[in-house]
């Protein structure tokens, strides 16, 4: 047997796959074949490395060299230079967006060096489609250990670790298990909630795609702890790659006897089924999710009784989020004290965030609770593109709120965020810069929850509609005196009277933006002006004559012929034709097009 002297790991998360990672892989295999070193180099798919913005990416071990933005034609260069001659291909390395510094290895770049990876421990190291590689990283060792403990000891360990649900609500996981263990009824069930639906959030998808066995193992430990012998994965059908890898993982675990009867020679038996959701946002709510698994329409019901007592088919049921379950195995292996030493007083461990929006390094990150927003945005995230100013971050998606610049140093944990009207939520973290209109942000999220409202209870069905109407009016320059107060009043009612979490949290983005950016609402209503110059009804585009070089690009990109001008003459924009798409503004090489407030102009 020849020794394999190098491993090339190619990120096979959805983001990299969609930026043609597999084409690169094929080209690489071909190049290795041509160079005659196919047998010496292992090419392996791996889970999401997190640097989604830089994809497709690959890591070459043993050196740990990290290549980014790979094209199929780069494969030959990597083979001939790096793998044959040992010369790192500099032009394909990661460059820090602000300092332009080049980093050869993945572990050195800020994006990774600043993280603490518990949930994402195997991303970029193992092949998610190989159970052996998971086992090589102590996989299923925690299950074996748990089976030597009593269920009460397992629950006690999870309780003492301080782990709280990562789906958004932050309920203590150990306590949830204990309630289900003590609940009367048989059989009992474990459900993994993989119905990730917040716009901009993709943590759970990446975990299922990148390390499915870690979630399976966590679910089995939960099953053992509460006395269940059956588990369900509920994953949305819009996540085909996650479903494929999960199915494969379940099959592999079954073949090894890790799922089935008398696991590892003990009395514990456990089976797992995968159920696909069709993507209704409300099905992430636990009672609606249960209804959906039972084959009914996905609608929530009032709680209590909680699923721990009366869940799936009215039997005691634990529902845990994907990320929560991925934390279980490390907790069992390393102990409660280890886990509770990470994070803050009441928020233990780490949190995976999907970093999106106006930030240089978008992608998937895992940091200890208590890390400040500033560290995430400016160190892990590499700052705001184009030297713009940070304005706010939206956490928790449509259920959450915004964190304005004055709270950049707030530690991200459950309590601190709650205090300022935001939530940790499931982990979506959208960064906004000075060009973002906060009223429009509120409208965006409310539009989402409004259209996802299942319609069962009137406060949510009617209330969100009414609020959305007001927001749309404000954005169109038709806001009225008292609209802000009406939004607050309606918001509080929807929050209090809605049946489930969807409605109860739907007003949050509105209330939170009013709290911190009331002046923007007032500008829209009283002055008919959008301070961020983003709301189309309130702005116009015009040419700055001094800067225009008559290059004609604006006229070429304009889809409606509003940007006009003769050769060598200063161009202009016909405001009657202009649809305010902003293309000319984005494409003008001289910055000669500006946005102006139209209502100001009139006066």
């Amino acid at each position: 047997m020849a020794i394999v002297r190098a491993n090339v790991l190619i990120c096979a998360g959805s983001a990299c796959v969609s930026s043609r990672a597999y084409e690169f892989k094929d080209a690489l295999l071909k190049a290795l074949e041509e160079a005659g070193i196919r047998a010496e180099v292992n090419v392996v798919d791996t889970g999401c490395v997190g640097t989604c913005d830089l994809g497709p990416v690959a890591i070459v071990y043993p050196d740990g060299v990290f290549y980014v933005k790979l094209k199929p034609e780069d494969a030959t260069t990597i083979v001939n230079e790096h793998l044959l001659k040992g010369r790192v291909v500099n032009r394909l390395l990661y460059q820090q967006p602000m300092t332009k510094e080049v980093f050869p290895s993945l572990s050195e770049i800020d994006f990774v060096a600043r993280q603490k990876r518990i949930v994402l421990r195997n991303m970029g190291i193992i092949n998610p489609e190989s159970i052996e590689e998971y086992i090589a990283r102590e996989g299923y060792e925690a299950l074996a250990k748990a089976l030597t403990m009593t269920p009460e000891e397992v629950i006690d360990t999870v309780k003492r670790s301080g782990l709280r649900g990562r789906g958004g609500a932050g309920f203590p996981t150990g306590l949830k298990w204990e309630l289900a263990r003590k609940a009367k009824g048989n059989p009992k069930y474990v459900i993994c909630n993989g119905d990730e639906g917040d716009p901009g959030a993709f943590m759970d998808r990446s975990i299922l795609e990148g390390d499915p066995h870690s979630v399976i193992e966590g679910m089995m430990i939960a099953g053992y702890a509460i006395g269940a012998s059956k588990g369900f994965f509920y994953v949305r059908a819009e996540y085909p790659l996650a479903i494929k890898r999960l199915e494969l993982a379940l099959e592999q675990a079954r073949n090894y006897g890790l799922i089935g009867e008398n696991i590892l020679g003990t009395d514990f038996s456990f089976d797992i089924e995968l159920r696909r959701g069709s993507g209704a946002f409300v099905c992430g709510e636990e009672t609606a999710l249960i209804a959906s698994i039972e084959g009914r329409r996905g609608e929530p019901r009032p709680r209590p009784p909680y699923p721990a007592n009366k869940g799936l088919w009215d039997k005691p049921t634990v529902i845990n989020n994907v990320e929560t379950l991925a934390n279980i195995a490390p907790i069992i292996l390393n102990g409660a004290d280890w886990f509770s030493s990470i994070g803050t007083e009441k928020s233990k461990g780490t949190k995976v965030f999907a970093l999106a929006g106006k930030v240089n390094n978008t992608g998937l990150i895992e940091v200890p609770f208590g890390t400040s927003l500033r560290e995430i945005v400016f160190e892990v995230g590499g700052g705001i593109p184009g030297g713009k100013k940070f304005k706010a971050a939206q956490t928790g998606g449509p259920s959450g709120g915004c964190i304005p610049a004055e709270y950049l140093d707030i530690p991200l944990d459950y309590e601190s965020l709650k205090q300022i009207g935001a939530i940790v939520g499931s982990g979506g973290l959208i960064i906004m810069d000075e060009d973002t209109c906060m009223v429009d942000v509120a409208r965006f999220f409310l539009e989402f929850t409004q259209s996802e409202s299942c319609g069962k209870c009137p406060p949510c069905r009617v209330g969100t509609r009414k609020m959305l109407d007001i927001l749309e009016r404000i954005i169109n320059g038709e806001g009225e005196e008292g609209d802000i107060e009406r939004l607050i009043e309606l918001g509080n009612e929807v929050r209090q009277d809605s049946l489930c979490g969807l409605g109860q949290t739907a007003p949050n983005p509105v209330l939170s933006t009013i709290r911190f950016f009331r002046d923007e609402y007032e500008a829209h209503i009283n002055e008919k002006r959008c301070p961020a110059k983003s709301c189309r009804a309130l702005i116009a585009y015009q040419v700055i004559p001094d800067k225009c070089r008559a290059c004609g690009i604006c006229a070429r990109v304009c889809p409606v012929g509003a940007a006009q001008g003769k050769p060598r003459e200063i161009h202009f924009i016909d405001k009657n034709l202009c649809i305010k798409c902003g293309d000319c503004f984005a494409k003008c090489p001289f910055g000669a097009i500006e946005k102006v407030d139209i209502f100001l102009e009139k006066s």
Partner: protein
Amino acid sequence: MKSLEDLRRIREQAQAQIRLRTQETNTKIIVGMGTCGIAAGARETLMAILDELAKRNIQDVVVTQTGCVGLCEYEPLVNVVKPGQPKITYMKVTPERARQIIASHIVNDQVINEWVLSTEEGV
């Protein structure tokens, strides 16, 4: 799989697959693979090294390559870096020499002085 022992056995076998990705400090053998090195037979030397390591089932050694360091007439050059020891550069390493270096230096910690071109501290 019926017991913890079975699980551990699979783990040991599987660890070989991912060893290159997870090891931090270990012995490195670096083969000069510039054009000059390849012309002087570095490819054969590299293959001999890999083969010898496989035969002896030595798994904690990482084999990588480097480019031309400017000493083309001494190629093939092979560096051996053991944790906490100076970097030893061997010259004119034929496949036979390579096998002996593994037996002597890697396994028994005996540097073969007559083939040493240079010794570099603090690598």
